[in-house]
């Protein structure tokens, strides 16, 4: 059994163990779940260390045909695009579990759901077969629905239903597109990603456009792309804080990841859509930023800032050049870390004060200096300060976009400006101002919370100061993709 199956098996084993032990002993459940998440994270770290960065092809490839009638295979593998996502997924699951100590009801099913979610997310990034990809893609819906609907806020019912309906609606278009491509597969061709890429390129041009359209809707809902983001504010606001970390940190990246794969598969069609994608990306960035600026609810603000930041990913992908795609891949990691840290900190704050309205806060720096320190760095990273990982990603996207469209990138600058506006205002309103009596008795971060925050902030700052290892991890794969694309569209 390969390392990837072992990695995938770890959360599965965790679920099995958790189902077998009694539900009463809370600390035992927490310990088991945390250990399995840690083991998964260590596996992914080992993977990074062992991964051959100079080689852009799929590595650690494993294959097992589970449906001989269609040659659907249980095919796993990693490359430079999926590997950072795998590390991010296992890391953020660990962080989310560390932030889950406030969950006191139905602890067992909560941890099982989170581990199931991790299984689904890892499966999406690991699978090298579209059918397997789709299965894992849909698998993530079930635990998320349960997590939001059971442990969510006041409007959790509406939020969970809304989320599932949106994502399922998008998935259907994705499935239709996949089926359309499989029409062009040879008899018993299977559903392997590599094979289907070949098949898609042999499709007629107008069909390619429709297929790409389906993928855009399917992945665009998850990402989310501007008009399809209706589920996101509600789901992010109503989800419990640890789930918000996972939702914003990794679930959104699944959409972006799928889109990158599709763009490599259908470069010619993407070229046709390029101007529209650019417009949607830029408009979505400004739109999300302005709406984030308008929110007085902290969680809603972070949610809308996610819409804005994922616009950078779409923009990077739409450039169809090396720098732009690098920017997109980097932004996926950067936003995962930043959004994860933001939701973690906002969630911890909410647990202490039970209000998310920013107007209720004031002068927190006096009572929670450590929190203030981490929150400020994270917000700076969110607006793309140099020295944080967000900056590295944004600069790549801007350069890539400039190569493609020139002065239109002014609008990207505008959106960064808007994000600076709300980030700075949030820092000001949270930590400075007159002392409010009800904000006098708030506890600063506890040890395990501090651990979680330190890991994320350290990653944000270190990768911002020294981004080379992160870029090197993906550069070989991106080069290969770029070669593919530029060959096709020339």
């Amino acid at each position, binding site marked *: 059994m390969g390392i990837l199956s072992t990695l995938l098996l770890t959360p599965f084993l965790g679920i099995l163990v958790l189902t077998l032990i009694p539900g009463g002993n809370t600390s035992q459940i927490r310990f088991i779940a945390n250990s399995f998440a840690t083991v998964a994270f260590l596996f992914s770290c080992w993977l990074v260390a062992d991964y051959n960065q100079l080689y852009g092809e799929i590595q650690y490839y494993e294959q097992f045909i589970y449906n001989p009638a269609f040659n659907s295979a249980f095919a796993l593998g990693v490359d430079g695009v999926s590997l950072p996502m795998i590390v991010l997924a296992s890391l953020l699951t660990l962080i989310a579990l560390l932030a889950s100590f406030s969950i006191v009801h139905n602890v067992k099913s909560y941890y099982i759901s989170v581990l199931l979610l991790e299984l689904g997310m890892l499966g999406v990034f690991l699978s090298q077969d579209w059918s397997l990809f789709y299965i894992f893609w849909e698998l993530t819906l079930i635990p998320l629905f349960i997590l939001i609907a059971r442990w969510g806020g006041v409007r959790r019912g*509406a939020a969970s239903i809304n989320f599932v309906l949106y994502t399922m609606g998008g998935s259907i278009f994705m499935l239709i597109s996949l089926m359309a491509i499989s029409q062009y597969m040879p008899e018993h061709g299977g559903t392997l990603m590599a094979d289907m890429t070949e098949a898609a390129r042999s499709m007629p041009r107008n069909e390619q456009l429709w297929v790409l359209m389906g993928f855009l809707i399917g992945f665009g809902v998850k990402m989310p792309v501007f008009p399809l983001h*209706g589920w996101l504010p509600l789901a992010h606001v109503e989800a419990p804080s640890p789930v918000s970390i996972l939702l914003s940190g990794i679930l959104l990246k699944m959409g972006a990841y799928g889109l990158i794969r599709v763009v490599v598969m259908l470069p010619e069609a993407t070229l046709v859509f390029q101007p529209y994608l650019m417009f949607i990306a830029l408009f979505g960035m400004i739109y999300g930023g302005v709406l984030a600026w*308008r929110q*007085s609810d902290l969680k809603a603000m972070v949610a809308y800032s996610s819409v804005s930041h994922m616009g950078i990913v779409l923009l990077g992908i739409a450039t169809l050049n090396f720098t732009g795609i690098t920017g997109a891949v980097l932004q996926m990691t950067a936003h995962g870390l930043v959004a994860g840290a933001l939701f973690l900190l906002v969630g911890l704050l909410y647990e202490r004060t039970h209000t998310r309205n920013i107007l209720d806060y004031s002068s927190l720096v006096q009572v929670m200096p450590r929190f203030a320190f981490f929150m400020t760095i994270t917000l700076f990273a969110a607006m793309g300060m140099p020295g944080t990982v967000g900056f590295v990603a944004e600069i790549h996207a801007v350069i890539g976009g400039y190569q493609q469209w020139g002065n239109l990138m002014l609008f990207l600058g505008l959106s960064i400006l808007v994000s600076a506006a709300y980030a700075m205002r949030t820092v000001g309103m949270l930590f400075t101002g007159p002392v409010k009596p009800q904000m006098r008795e708030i506890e600063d971060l506890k040890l395990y919370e501090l651990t979680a925050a330190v890991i994320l902030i350290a990653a944000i700052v270190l990768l911002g100061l020294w981004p080379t290892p992160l870029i090197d991890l993906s550069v070989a794969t991106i080069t290969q993709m770029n070669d593919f694309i530029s060959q096709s569209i020339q």
Partner: protein
Amino acid sequence: MDVLVIFIPLFPFIAAIIIGFGYFSSQVMGLRGELSSSDVARNAIYLSSVSAILLLIADLAGENSGSKMVGQWLDSGNFVVNLNFITTGFNVVVAALFSVILVIITVFSKNYVHYEPGFRRFFFVLSLFSSSMFLLILSGNAIGTFIGWELAGLCSYLLISYSYERPVAVINATRVFVTNRIGDTGFILGMALSFYFAGTVDWTSLNGMAETLSTPTVTVISLCFVVAAMAKSAQLPFSPWLARAMEGPTPSSAVFYGSVMIHSGVFLVILLQPIIDKAPFTMGLLVIVGLATAIYSYLVGLTQTDVKSSLCFAITGQLGLMFLECGLGLWELAMWHMCAHAIVRCFQVLTAPSLIKNVNGNPMKPASPFFTNRRWLYIASIQRFWLDPITDRTLVRPVYGLGHDLDRFDKNIIDRAMGDPVSSFTAISSLTQIENEARRKRVDEIQMEFVRGKGIVGKLLEWVANIMSWFEERLVLRGIGMDLVTIGRNLGHAANMFELLLLKPRYLVLFVFIVLMLAASI
């Protein structure tokens, strides 16, 4: 002497009009009014009783021609309805007998309902009933009989709900009236069919044509009339109404259910003797229904503990026997039985209240061991064989449900389409809506303070943000997000309702009816 027959129903009718107008114009108030109204009623019924007896004597002396034609009531194409009366035979005997009974009951009532608030009302209804009963008995055609039949039913309704301030009385009255209407449907159908097949609604000519009509025709016509008779005479499965009808005051029970009106079913069957004789199927039905009713009434009567209920089941039992006799062709016996029964029951019911007083304290005779040892029979008897619940389950509830559904259709679709004056659709109807409204208001207020930009750029940003926020709230969140959920939920709800309605038997039955009607019309 034929002309006497006109006066028999006329006198009580005039009395009813006098009392009614007196009541209406507040002329018959107080104790004096009581006296005058009871006197009017009594004198009228005296006069018609004398006329009836004179008519009977004349008939026995062979002075009567058999029928008296007064005039034409309706003449439309070949559908002619005369206002004519039968002045001979069984009809006259029954008229004379009933007139005497009615005299007795009217006299009895004067003291019985003395000082009751509905005294004048009682005598008005009693007079009207006497008139309609005579019309029923003496009318020479089915239309006249039917008018009397219906008026008698109406009077029965009015007297059961005599104390209309008690809900039970009103419910029972309605129930009895509606049950009787089922029989009336049979009567109307019977009339229509006899006109269609025989071309006449005259009893004499209809009976005369019995020989010329084919057996199926005769069977159908007689079946319709027999259903009407069964309903009126409380035969199975209509029996339960009689027990409910005992709600009214005692004299009315006596006159309606003891001796007079209850016999009109049997009377109708006897009246149609030539027709029914030609229809063996109808005879068989009479036998079965009569026998079943007799057994049913006997079994149920064994467990009744109050005097009115036991009388009530004794009455249906005897009537069942009369139906049985008719079915077996023992017409003469049925006639005698009916007359004798009317007299005996009248006495029994009228004395029932004093009987209670007289036998007070006497030990009750236990039911026979044969009966008590069969527990299921005992329970069935106490529960009156569950006839009322069965009717409720199979007929009343589906009709209720249908009415409910139609009402909802009316409210939700017709009213809405026509523009309901009281619009409840825009009003807040649930707590959730209030909460949503309040939250939206609160959020809006905070928003306005919170997003105030400074300077030109700030104002521009504020302006853009307001537009985008409106777009987000209206289209993305509410339009696509929440409304999708709401629409989905509504659709699901509607589908559920549809499924639920489809599963209800009443719609299945309705569907079958519609199909049958379509098939019949083709």
